[in-house]
């Protein structure tokens, strides 16, 4: 084992890590927004909307992420073509990002829903007694409290997403894992680069999960 070749490769690996982080951050942001919207629908009094959101969640939670990534990679160009009527080139990055957002939204939805349901019923009653309408009470009273409660869970899910971004390997996107593998293969040191990649993933996720645990203790209401 000779790890000396990793040093000169670091800039390239860093580019890969940037792509990984970019995917993760955008995936989490999009996923939380879509997930929150889905949670609102699931909790709404309209049975049709609630059922539609529930179907969405159950659907995405019962298929593998890798299937979603692969499917979107193949299908998005066709769908865009049907919508826009002309060839719209879309990179692997965008199709992966869409896949992550739609997939993770199902998981984020369940976290947000549990967070909202954990808020005392009286809060909504009190908000409405003060003359707020439903959107106002949600936005100003319920959601801020709910998000505080569920921050640790959202962050844990984000760590999982950080690890799951490695699945974009399947469409050849140069994320951190793929950058490590391809560089290791070129110079014939795939083992060293693979071990290094594993160590980096471990260090980042482990440190992040320690932070989340710390935060969990501080945020505890």
């Amino acid at each position: 084992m000779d790890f000396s070749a990793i040093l000169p490769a670091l800039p390239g690996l860093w580019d890969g890590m940037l792509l990984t982080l970019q995917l993760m951050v955008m995936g989490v942001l999009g996923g939380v927004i879509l997930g929150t919207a889905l949670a609102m629908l699931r909790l709404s009094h309209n049975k049709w909307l609630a059922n539609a959101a529930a179907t969405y969640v159950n659907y995405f939670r019962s298929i593998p992420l890798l299937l979603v990534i692969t499917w979107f990679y193949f299908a998005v160009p066709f769908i865009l073509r049907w919508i826009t009527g002309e060839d719209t080139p879309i990179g692997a990055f965008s199709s992966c990002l869409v896949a992550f957002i739609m997939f993770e939204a199902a998981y984020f939805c369940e976290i947000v829903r549990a967070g909202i349901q954990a808020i005392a019923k009286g809060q909504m009653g009190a908000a409405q007694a003060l003359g707020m309408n439903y959107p106002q009470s949600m936005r100003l009273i319920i959601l801020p409290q709910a998000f505080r409660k569920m921050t640790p869970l959202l962050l844990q899910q984000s760590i999982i997403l950080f690890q799951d971004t490695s699945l974009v390997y399947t469409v050849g996107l140069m994320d951190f894992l793929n950058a490590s593998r391809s560089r290791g293969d070129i110079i014939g040191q795939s083992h060293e680069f693979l071990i290094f990649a594993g160590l980096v993933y471990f260090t980042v996720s482990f440190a992040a999960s320690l932070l989340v645990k710390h935060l969990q203790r501080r945020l505890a209401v």
Partner: protein
Amino acid sequence: MNYNWDWGIFFKSTGIGSEIYLDWFVTGLGWTIAIALVGWVIALLLGSLLGVMRTVPNRWIAGIATTYVEIFRNVPLLVQLFLWYFLVPDLLPEPLEMWFKQDLNPATSAYLSVVVCLGLFTAARVCEQVRTGIQALPQGQTAAAYAMGFRLPQIYSNVLLPQAYRIIIPPLTSEFLNIFKNSSVASLIGLMELLAQTKQTAEFSANLFEAFTLATLIYFTLNMGLMLLMRMIEHRVAVPGLIAVGGK
């Protein structure tokens, strides 16, 4: 980019021998189930052992199990799979390495790697569930067992574990379903499980929407079926009076 819809594609010949596309899906599903079930046996056995280790009154033993869990939870599944498939065989003793690389057919060696990988990966998760289950039991259970003259191994096998397993069936169910979904990574080391067969069908027939729709339906049905099965088991073995079952 014109697309020719053809839902009959699954009954058409693949052009290879006398196979139709549906045969590919059946073969793929077979691999998926074979990976998931064998991986699950490993995960359940090792995970239970680790879960017990995390709760025994010995800091060193608990520390080993905690380290295991942290390592296997914080490295992405795909990286673990590559390590098992590309790296570990090279570290084996010469005869074993030759056997793995030359004597085994490629599907078998990929299968072994995936099963070991998923088994050990899921074991870390099962461990946490088992630990939670044991810790959820009242302390008095252990104390009472000690008072009756049980030794520690007997306490685990006769008092704690039988109750813990029954409490943790819901979270174990979701791990059990996860191992089916996670088995799809096997497609990335060339094992022709369900997802790989789907991709191959999409590429051969150019009917990608139909192929992926069928794959989605299969995963979905598998998931629902297993979930119903686990619910039935959960109801049957519920500890009376301990927890509400099936409430939702």
